[in-house]
């Protein structure tokens, strides 16, 4: 392991590690806790659950989000569900099985100890959420209902209609608002973090901009927690909310936090395809649709007939043909990549040729329309609302879209980054999903981090660290404010001939083409040049109208896009260096004869953690080797 990385993974049997580690963590006396100020950036599942928990323990908490209410964080959009190893269905689930599935699903690029703890905590999460009033689906006897999700062999997914993320977030949000009421939490909405401030090498505060007044402010604290979500929007088009950004984690990276596995991105196979150049985001259609829908394209690329007029013999059911045993239910990455292949071959459908059919005609014939309506009614409605087409009478069109980012700031077992005092929770860290995330496990991780990990590990940091009194008059804060102000001035002064969205779209296209579903050395090298050129152009030609002293949504976007430019270069570099295919990272050079991903465990069984050298501006690679004594390495096969 690089000497700069200490994962602090406890020794001993994996099922005892968290218990013994917790016992060894230092505590802070209840009467002293209010003297400690904790800054939490982000009010998604990870941030809101942490904020509520710290405030309940008696700490003084400051919470930040860029939305007008903490309840609107991107977690709200999660549909499918949340996993937990409750084994309520008595179908063979266990903590060990959830652990094993998550490690394997991540294609052996996650840290065993963290994942085991995640599986252990999953059980408490459901208890906590139910106690808060989260209205999970129930059986007639009043017990909680479960379903199987994302190809899992057990039914361990808890859900609340198609609104699981919303209901979990409202639970965490209400727990947090209870503490706002008790004045233990100060809430800063519409407040965007622009920089992290270090004093004596420790994270001691942040710089923010109030989005309505434009006011730039410094906030000092004993410790800082980032729970700012993922970076999917580097691709411009993704299933993420429009405001999702990399700014907070990227700024922390520039101040010394190592960024881990930035090339690991999840592409979801069933999204509504791009329709036109006005398109602003992509909508996910739950992958449960693949349980009954059959995926196909016409065999003849020049076939322009309506799909209903194409006879069965002239259709290419490519997943069923290529993967006879799993068929339409192959994992997300395979389903996505194969859609791309057939479209690359010119077989794609729709106005752009970048779509495949997902057909329910056979299922409707077999089970009847009302059965299908019961299973997917709300999804069909969403589809029709957006596209104007009726999926009961003609096939849906779908295409893969960027969905989730497994990479993030590197953290140790305590969820602390390489900057002392900077903890990172939720999608913003790299920790639990390796190279590919299983369905219904991001919500679980966010809440595990926020309710049940950080509340133990952050106090240990506070109890064992000498923290001198620091306030915002400290020169580090003053300089950081000046830097933020001059960057804003610079963005506003260019007044060029292209909009921020123009640049973001172009950046997204480069990343999608060359650093998306399938990557190659030459493509990545081209992408790096293209991004560098576009970034230069951005700083001379972008037009950010208006001023910095008021609500200015163009300015907000410009700052985020500027950070996406810097970040995308590291993402490409990481993809270039990882000479293997694993999980969501598919390098064309590393595939078997029949197009399957080939992992290279001998050379790449490690976490790639990148350090920005402030002297040279170069990114330096550090490796955290991964061991799998409890979940032995194996190769996925779905043939």
């Amino acid at each position, binding site marked *: 392991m690089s000497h700069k990385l200490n994962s602090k993974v406890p020794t001993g049997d994996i099922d005892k590690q968290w218990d013994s580690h917790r016992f060894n963590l230092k505590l802070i006396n209840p009467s002293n806790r209010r003297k400690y100020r904790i800054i939490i950036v982000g009010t998604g599942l990870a941030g809101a*659950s942490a904020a*509520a928990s710290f405030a*309940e323990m008696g700490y003084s908490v400051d919470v930040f989000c860029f*939305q*007008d*209410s903490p*309840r*609107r964080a*991107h977690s*709200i*959009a999660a549909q499918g569900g949340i996993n937990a190893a*409750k084994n*309520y269905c008595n179908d063979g689930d266990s903590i060990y099985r959830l652990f094993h599935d998550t490690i394997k699903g991540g294609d052996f690029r996650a840290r065993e100890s963290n994942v085991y703890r995640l599986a252990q905590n999953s059980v*408490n999460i459901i*208890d*906590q*959420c*139910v*106690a*808060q*009033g989260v*209205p999970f689906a129930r*059986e*007639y006897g*009043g*017990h*909680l209902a479960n379903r199987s999700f994302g190809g899992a062999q057990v039914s361990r997914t808890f859900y*609340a*209609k198609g*609104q699981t993320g*919303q209901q979990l977030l*409202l639970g965490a*949000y*209400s727990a947090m*608002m*209870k503490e*706002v*009421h008790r004045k233990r939490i100060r*809430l800063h*909405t519409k407040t965007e973090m622009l920089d992290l401030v270090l004093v004596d090498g420790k994270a001691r505060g942040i710089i923010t901009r109030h989005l*309505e007044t434009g006011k730039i402010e410094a906030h000092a604290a004993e410790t800082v927690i980032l729970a700012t979500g993922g970076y999917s929007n580097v691709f411009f088009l993704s299933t993420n*909310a*429009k*405001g999702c950004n990399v700014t907070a984690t990227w700024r922390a990276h520039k101040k010394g936090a190592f960024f881990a596995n930035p090339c690991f991105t999840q592409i979801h196979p069933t999204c509504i395809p791009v*329709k*036109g150049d*006005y*398109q*602003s985001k992509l*909508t996910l259609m739950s992958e449960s649709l693949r349980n009954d829908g059959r995926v196909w394209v016409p065999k003849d690329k020049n076939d322009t007939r309506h799909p209903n007029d194409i006879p069965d013999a002239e259709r290419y059911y490519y997943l069923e043909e290529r993967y006879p045993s799993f068929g339409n239910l192959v994992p997300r990455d395979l389903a996505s990549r194969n859609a791309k292949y057939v479209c690359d071959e010119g077989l794609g459908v729709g*106005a752009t040729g970048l779509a495949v059919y997902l057909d329910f005609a056979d299922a409707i014939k077999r089970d009847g329309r009302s059965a299908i309506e019961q299973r997917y009614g709300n999804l069909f409605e969403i589809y029709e*609302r957006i*596209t*104007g087409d009726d999926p009961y009478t003609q096939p849906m069109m779908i295409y893969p879209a960027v969905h989730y980012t497994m990479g993030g700031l590197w953290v140790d077992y305590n969820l602390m980054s390489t900057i002392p005092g900077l903890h990172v929770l939720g999608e913003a860290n790299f920790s639990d999903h390796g190279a590919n995330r299983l369905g219904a496990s991001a919500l679980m991780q966010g809440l595990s981090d926020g309710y049940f990990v950080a509340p133990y590990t952050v106090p240990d940091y506070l109890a064992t660290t000498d923290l001198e009194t620091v306030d915002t008059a400290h020169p580090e804060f003053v300089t950081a404010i000046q830097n933020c102000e001059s960057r804003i001035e610079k963005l506003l002064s260019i007044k060029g*001939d292209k*909009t921020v*969205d123009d640049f973001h779209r172009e950046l997204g296209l480069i990343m999608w083409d060359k650093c998306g579903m399938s990557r190659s050395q030459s493509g990545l090298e081209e992408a790096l040049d293209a991004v560098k050129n576009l970034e230069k152009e951005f700083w001379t030609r972008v037009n950010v*109208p208006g001023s910095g002293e008021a*609500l200015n949504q*163009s300015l907000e976007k410009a700052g985020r896009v500027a950070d996406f430019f810097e970040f995308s270069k590291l993402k490409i570099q990481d993809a270039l260096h990882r000479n293997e295919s694993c999980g969501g990272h598919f390098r064309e050079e590393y595939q078997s004869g029949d197009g399957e991903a080939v992992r290279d465990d001998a050379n790449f069984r490690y976490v790639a953690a990148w350090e920005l050298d402030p002297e040279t501006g170069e990114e330096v690679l550090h490796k955290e080797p991964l061991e799998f004594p409890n979940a032995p390495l194996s190769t996925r096969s779905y043939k």
Partner: protein
Amino acid sequence: MGKRLDLTLRIWRQKNTNSSGEFVTYDLENVDVNASFLEMLDVLNEKLTLSGDEPVAFEHDCREGICGSCGAMVNGKAHGGEDKTTLCQLHMRHFKSGDVIVIEPFRAKALPVVKDLVVDRSALDRIIESGGYISVKTGSAPEANQILVKKDLADRAMDAASCIGCSACVAACPNASAMLFTSAKVVHLGSLPQGSTEAASRVINMVDEMKTNGFGNCSNEYLCEAACPKGIKVSNIAKMNQWYKQAMTNQPLSE
């Protein structure tokens, strides 16, 4: 590429809370019918930016109808008036070429305009803060299946919990009342055994907080239900009124 529309937009422009606003007319041509309403505004904003104007400020985030950020009055109707549809999910195929579309912010004393179509909805957070929670600390929850919930009550709670806090109900109400929003939370939590211990104080505190923030009273106009993109029912208001009366007179709350 879909069919194209030529539109006239009359949009409320207001610099900030203290300035007075006005309608400004824009012609927008060649709008794809497949675009969403917000994407149509994006296209307008790109044009305004390049012509040296300031783009129209509007709230949005998920663009999937779930975060509750977006919303405006479109031709006098909250979210544009399509059944159970947020503004971000409204698509331009519902309009015709030549249409004049009037777009203005949600209006209510308790929701002051911040800029253009953006309003300040922090009053809704304050209502939740006053009691929209169950006081359970992290770590003190019992085993989940020890709390059984009758299916009909679980369903009632789920339906009420679907509120996204968009404030369309307030904007649609002639009295600018937040009864639908408040009752949705009161009924969600009060229907569950976990939430019943605090149900009496919750309903009193939340209704009082609503009044303190300058929202009006309910006079049974039912316009809120019609405007609600999540199908929250006015039956929640009736339930809340019943519980409020019972709580004020120290009677047990009915189921």
